[in-house]
């Protein structure tokens, strides 16, 4: 049990308590925002686990999650556009949390691995995660043109 595995475990527990709470108890919008946070937490946990178990190929799984997580949320945003329009969720706290956790995790992993293509891949995953979250949050809150969302 090294520091990476401990950090991944703490992140999973600390991240999934609000996710389960939001999905199980909240209104529809908060549930969608919470599941979006869930995919980000899983992605970061996989990154930490790949370093903890010394298995660089696990980063590929995190890369796929970083792409498909926000895309899945965009599908929800499209399908639930009418319901979300009435009661748009507050996603700012979730997005800020993801950014505040992603940046130190990716920087720490890059420092641990040293410069090279692996570090570039980690930065790519981090950027995808942050940008994907910002776009997904904006779509959930109706930040994009309403005509585009509901057409």
């Amino acid at each position, binding site marked *: 049990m090294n520091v990476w595995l401990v950090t991944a475990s703490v992140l999973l527990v600390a991240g999934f308590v609000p996710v389960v709470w939001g999905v199980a108890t909240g209104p529809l919008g908060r549930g969608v925002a919470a599941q979006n946070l869930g995919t980000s937490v899983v992605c970061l946990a996989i990154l930490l686990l790949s370093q903890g178990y010394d298995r*660089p*190929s696990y980063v*590929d799984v995190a*890369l796929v999650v970083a792409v498909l997580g926000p895309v899945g949320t965009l599908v929800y945003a499209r399908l639930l556009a009418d319901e979300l329009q009435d009661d748009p969720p507050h996603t700012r706290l979730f997005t800020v949390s993801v950014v505040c956790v992603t940046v130190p995790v990716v920087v720490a992993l890059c420092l641990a691995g040293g410069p090279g*293509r692996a570090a*570039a*891949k980690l930065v*790519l995953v981090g950027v995808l995660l942050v940008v994907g979250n910002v776009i997904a949050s904006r779509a959930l809150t109706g930040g994009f043109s309403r005509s585009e969302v509901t057409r």
Partner: protein
Amino acid sequence: MTGKRTATLIAELLVWWFSLSVLWLVLISTVDALEVLAGAVCALLAAVLAVAARRAVTGR
């Protein structure tokens, strides 16, 4: 006018091809000649699709 448009198209294709090839090289685990060749071919196909998709979206 047509020549200028063709030049723009080819320039856009080359930019896509270069960017996607770099992305491929970053994401693969071992770099050897076969991987680079496969990446270049896949990136070219993806570049053609990207140019076509962008033109379709912008309605030109």
